[in-house]
């Protein structure tokens, strides 16, 4: 794909956006200015005196914990909600949005976290869907194609207009979403947690795209709670906490630790594990585990791991290096080519999943919605899931509803799951509370060994600290934990032993106390194993 950065941006700007009014530091007109925004829902103030000024042609990051009011604010800016108080000014013009259509008319576009694309249509068809340009009453595909080619060249967004969306990867889909918004004439893009679904390489590509967009005068509002990314990509950062904007910083003047403290409002907990509780007794042992794809290539290649009672073994690795298949092999949801697994002295290599669960194998899945919860079932039934044959949930062939409910009440209390009752559907809880429910469910079953895959992914800082505490307590009580995570600080802080997986093989065994995140990072990319920087 060619990149021509020299075309005229005004071609695609809708007219009448640039009316000078309120000015910011360097004298330019703010692309977006929110002043004193208040939004109340019954019983709760979602936004309280929010002030946000976004300079044109910059990437402005909005950070905050889950529930800090970021989403509400963006919905207000995109016309999906109406503020009770306060003003919105776009390019100097005071506006009131009745619907997203009004927002789009003023050049505001939103790229949602979950893509809204029709798989069986082409990129071109998706881009024009709902905004079809017509000539003589029929869709003007040629005009649309020219327009899309213009946009892709101008903003360096390489997409093929005639490929079906179902054949695109996540990164490409995201570019199509961005293109869709630009096609509607957006000059300010709201990106809602755009990196949540991307792998690291795709994140880099996205950031390249964002800087191209910026250089062409597009303004970007970037919502995230991944602070390192925010520091990389943003020109300005606004922090929200408990419904209000609490700080505005330049990335040069702040560290991710300081940002996190601003988000939480007090000093941060660290994932450090103190004195060692590792014993001699091996609880979970993998030896020579190999898992192959259908074409015979190995996803997991001759992996041997020993986890002792009271030990947390951390596995670091770039996603897609065999972690998922390794977990599946331990859980018994995939077949292994060779090798053996033993749990608490029993050879479980050929046991079905249920028997492994009953023998005391706990599981915190990497994707809690897909593998960990029944979203349309109440919390107490979710507490049963994975333990439906075990005490106290089962009595003979029957489910013991009363005991299961009592256990759930206990869990909610003990693990601080914030919910009005245990009859709430699991899907209605926030991510952090869902995760606390899963961790609680697994730990209360008294496991011998547990797989914890990305235990704090996508949860807010408060829940993260609580989960770390629980994992540490369980370790102290003798649990053998296999921790798989992408959060290097978490890995280094919690693990007693640190292994690095690369292309399905364990390539390094490190002492977390003597390992820096940088060192770990170089092992993860295979650079250290190759014996040089490559």
């Amino acid at each position, binding site marked *: 794909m060619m990149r021509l950065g020299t075309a005229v941006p005004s071609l695609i700007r809708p007219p009448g956006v640039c009316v000078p009014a309120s000015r910011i530091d360097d004298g330019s007109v703010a692309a977006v200015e929110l002043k004193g925004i208040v939004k109340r*829902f*019954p*019983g*709760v*103030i*979602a936004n309280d005196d929010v002030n946000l000024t976004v300079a044109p042609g910059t990437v402005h990051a909005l950070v905050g*914990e889950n*529930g*800090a*009011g970021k989403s509400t604010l963006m919905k207000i800016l995109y016309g999906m909600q109406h503020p009770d108080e306060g003003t919105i000014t776009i390019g100097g013009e005071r506006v009131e949005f009745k619907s997203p259509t009004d927002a789009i008319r003023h050049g505001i576009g939103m790229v949602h976290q979950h893509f809204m694309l029709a798989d069986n249509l082409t990129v071109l068809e998706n881009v024009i869907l709902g905004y079809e340009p017509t000539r003589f009453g029929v869709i003007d595909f040629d005009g649309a194609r020219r327009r899309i080619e213009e946009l892709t060249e101008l903003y360096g967004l390489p997409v093929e207009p005639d490929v079906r969306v179902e054949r695109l990867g996540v990164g490409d889909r995201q570019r199509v979403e961005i293109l869709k918004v630009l096609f509607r004439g957006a000059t300010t893009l709201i990106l809602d947690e755009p990196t949540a679904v991307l792998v690291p390489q795709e994140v880099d590509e996205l950031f390249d795209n964002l800087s191209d967009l910026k250089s062409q005068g597009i303004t970007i509002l970037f919502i995230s709670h991944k602070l390192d990314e925010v520091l990389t990509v943003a020109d300005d950062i606004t922090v929200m*906490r*408990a*419904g209000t904007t609490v700080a505005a910083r330049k990335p040069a003047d702040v560290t991710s630790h300081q940002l996190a403290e601003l988000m*939480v*409002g*007090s*000093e941060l*907990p660290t994932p450090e594990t103190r004195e060692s509780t590792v014993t001699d007794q091996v609880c979970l042992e993998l030896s020579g585990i190999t898992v192959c794809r259908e074409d015979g290539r190995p996803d997991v290649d001759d992996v041997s791991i020993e986890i002792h009672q009271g030990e947390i073994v951390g596995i670091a690795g770039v996603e897609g290096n065999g972690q998922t298949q390794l977990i599946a092999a331990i*859980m018994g*949801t995939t077949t292994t080519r060779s090798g053996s697994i033993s749990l608490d002295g029993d050879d479980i290599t050929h046991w*079905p*999943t*249920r*028997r*492994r*669960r009953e023998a005391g194998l706990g*599981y915190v*899945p990497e994707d809690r919605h*897909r*593998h*960990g*919860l*029944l*979203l*349309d*079932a109440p919390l107490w039934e979710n507490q*049963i*899931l*994975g333990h*439906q*044959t075990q005490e106290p949930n*089962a009595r003979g*062939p*029957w*489910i013991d*509803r009363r005991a299961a409910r009592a256990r759930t009440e206990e869990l909610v209390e003990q693990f601080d799951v*914030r*919910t*009005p009752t245990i*009859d*709430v559907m699991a899907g*209605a*809880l*926030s991510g952090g*509370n869902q995760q606390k429910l899963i961790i609680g469910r697994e730990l209360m079953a008294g496991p011998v060994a547990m797989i914890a895959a990305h235990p704090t992914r996508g949860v*807010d*800082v*408060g829940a993260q*600290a*609580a989960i770390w505490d629980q994992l540490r307590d369980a370790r102290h009580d003798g649990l053998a934990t296999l921790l798989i995570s992408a959060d290097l600080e978490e890995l280094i802080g919690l693990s007693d032993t640190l292994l690095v997986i690369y292309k399905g093989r364990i390539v390094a065994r490190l002492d977390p106390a003597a390992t820096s995140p940088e060192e770990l990072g170089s092992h993860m990319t295979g650079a250290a194993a190759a014996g040089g920087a490559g």
Partner: protein
Amino acid sequence: MKKNWKLQAAAPILALVGAAVIAGIILAATGNDPGDVLQVIVDDGFETRRVVDTLNRAAPYYIAGVAVAIGFKMTLFNIGVEGQYRLAALVAAWAGASVNLPAPLHVLFILMVAVITGAAWAAIPGLLRATRGVHEVISSIMLNSIALGLGAFLLHRWFRAPAGEYPGAVGTEVLPTPGRLPLLNGLVEKLGVDLPPGTRLQSYIFIALIIGVAYHLVISRTRFGFDLRASGSNPEAAEASGVDPKRMVVVTMVLSGAVAGLIGLNNVMSNVGDQARYTDVSVVGGLGFTGIAIALLGRNHPVGIALGALLWAFMDALQTPLSSAQLPKQITAILQGVAVLSVVIAYEVVRRIEQRQQASSLRRDSEPPPASEVAPA
């Protein structure tokens, strides 16, 4: 939080009122007086004769609804109930006429043959789905045709009674008396209800009742039922929890087919001399498809399915009095169809309202998290 029962009750009532209004409009538009139809329903619909007729008709509908609902509970669409019950009724009728056993054993024997035949026929799409990934809708629709053809072949080649032995359609031999289900007329009359002459209350309704209770217990009270519902709700999470997904598909299809096997037996096992046999008249077609509508009407709930089956049967039973009053009996079919659509729509509306209520009550309870609580020092 507890389910809002007022909201739950509002949905079916709204749906029925909506269906009645639409039917009224259609009647008026076709030059009939909706009042006349209502008159017939009120005057005639609740006569003892009609109530007995409704109950007898509702029982097979109920069993069909449960058979379909078992599949629905784990998002399996057993559209093959039709073929399963017709084949099962034929084989059971033939087997029942070929043996001589004491009364309760003979009845049990016939029921078992029906259950096993239905289960075996349903196992085919189950196994195809589990081992080859063939979608059960495709395979079971095709198996419906095969079941009809196979049934006709079996009947004409081996199972049919000698020509001329019984009046009427081609069919199997008549069941011996010990293999027939007794009538409940005597029991009802002991309870002080006088049945008009010629009405027969079949004890087959007890089979429906037992199926209903068993369905409820298995689905919502057992480990197996939990596994089944979990697989329907989130197959991947169910697998991680220890459910073998392939086995679950087969077992669910087999269970659904086993229940389906019982659908067509009400007339085959009736206590009326020449009728206690398999013919194309005594085992009517289409019950399997009606079962889909009834499972939808009843939202897969044991009581809901019962209400749906009763409503459907009531509409059927009204056809005779409507005809004799020179009114279009087709209005009952329209009402049945409109009722299914209105129920589906009404429940979806209620579901969304509930979801919104739940979400807003959660917001009240937990958002925004006070910063002091969120951060342990």
